[in-house]
């Protein structure tokens, strides 16, 4: 699909290229995080009111699955002001802060159900086509943290990405992925994992 229907430059794309190209109306559709909606629905956005949101497609086993990307607020073990840091963490994750952050600052990743159900939040997303129902469905039924806690995840991911680049450039998929699998095995062996 990428080879036949996307720009040749997609081979070098990272997430922000996809974000930018869809946001300027160059792409018809993309798979990406729904937290980009505030940018796409901003008054000055070229794609405002033209975006609809869908669940990820079903996999071969007929299931929908979605990775929940997260950030964490943490306190360093070496911190000399753990008390103050803990107060900050509490403030940063209150319902009021998360609501203000989402509704007023477009930081659209609240982690509290109470924020998602707040009337101000619902009013904000009401004009974004089906974003509200879609996000709720995703969070309640399909999304989970699928981050692989492995120190080699980036190197493995890069190796897999190179295989995808080869496939886009017409290398036979089985060969590209087999070569990637061998390299990944050797990466993991060298790491003792």
């Amino acid at each position: 699909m990428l080879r036949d229907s996307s720009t040749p430059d997609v081979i070098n794309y990272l997430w922000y290229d996809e974000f930018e190209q869809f946001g300027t109306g160059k792409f018809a559709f993309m798979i990406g995080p729904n937290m980009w909606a505030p940018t796409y629905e901003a008054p000055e956005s070229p794609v405002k009111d033209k975006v609809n949101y869908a669940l990820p497609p079903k996999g071969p086993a007929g299931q929908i699955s979605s990775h929940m990307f997260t950030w964490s607020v943490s306190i360093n073990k070496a911190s000399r002001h753990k008390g103050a840091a803990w107060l900050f963490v509490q403030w940063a994750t209150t319902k009021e802060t998360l609501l203000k952050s989402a509704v007023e600052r477009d930081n659209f990743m609240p982690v509290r159900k109470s924020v998602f159900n707040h009337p101000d939040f619902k009013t904000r997303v009401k004009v974004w086509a089906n974003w509200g129902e879609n996000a709720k469905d995703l969070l309640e039924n399909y999304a989970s943290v699928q981050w692989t806690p492995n120190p080699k995840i980036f190197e493995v991911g890069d190796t897999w990405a190179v295989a995808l680049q080869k496939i886009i450039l017409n290398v036979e998929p089985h060969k590209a992925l087999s070569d990637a699998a061998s390299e990944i095995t050797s990466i993991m062996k060298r790491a003792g994992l």
Partner: protein
Amino acid sequence: MTIPALSILLGLIIYPWIKGIYYSFTDYQLFKTSINFVWFQNYIDVLFSEKGHAAIVNTLLYTVYTIGIELPLGIGVAMALTEEARIMRLFRSFLIVPLLIPPTVAAIMWKVMMNSTNGVINYLLEKGGIYGIPWLTHPSTALLSVSLIDIWMFTPFVIIVIFAGLQSIRQDLVDAAKVDGASSLDIFCYITLPHLVPYLLLVLLFRAIDSLKMFDIIYGATKGGPINSTLVMHIEAYLKLIRGFDLAHAMVYTTLLWIICFLVAQFFIKGWTKTTE
């Protein structure tokens, strides 16, 4: 008096350098608590791997492409700048602009311009009947494309140095040669070029080292892709350490790169010293 300078040299340069070389002979990964000596296994891994080959070959090719074009282009433009025409005086003022732009910004700017579907370069080429150059998106053109960014940025440096060399040529020598019937080509071959040799060696030294260890232009434009076609040693060292936490292999790449830079520097410094004696 020398103790503070020596301390800085030892503490911030010599010690980390030696420690880094030591790590290249171990299996040190940042998430492991133990470090074991593995002799030359890492060097064998790098030198006999596809990625290692690609990184070394691309590094050398990138250097050849950039210097191969920057040097003759720089000499040509510097010679044109010696003309007293008004446009040349104006051009001298704008010459330095590419050098003022941070390399990563330049890379991103050129990446946008080289976009094969929306970029301004292909748009203008299409007006002239040339269609669909993939620039940064195909392995066959990506390395040359990032080299072009380097050439755009650093040819002004070559021009400035060569221009300074040209300005120092004694005019009476040139006049005497003209009186004796020497052609422009004779003057260039027998007066200009020999006089420029120390400046050329200086430029080659700086540009060779810079090109060998190039990181920001290539990383900003392609991150080493597509399919490792622009992967150079400095980028692979970064990826090994920052994305793979593999300090040992990262240090192998940086040590090999240091060896290549050292040999190149020695060659040009010896040549420059001979010409200035």
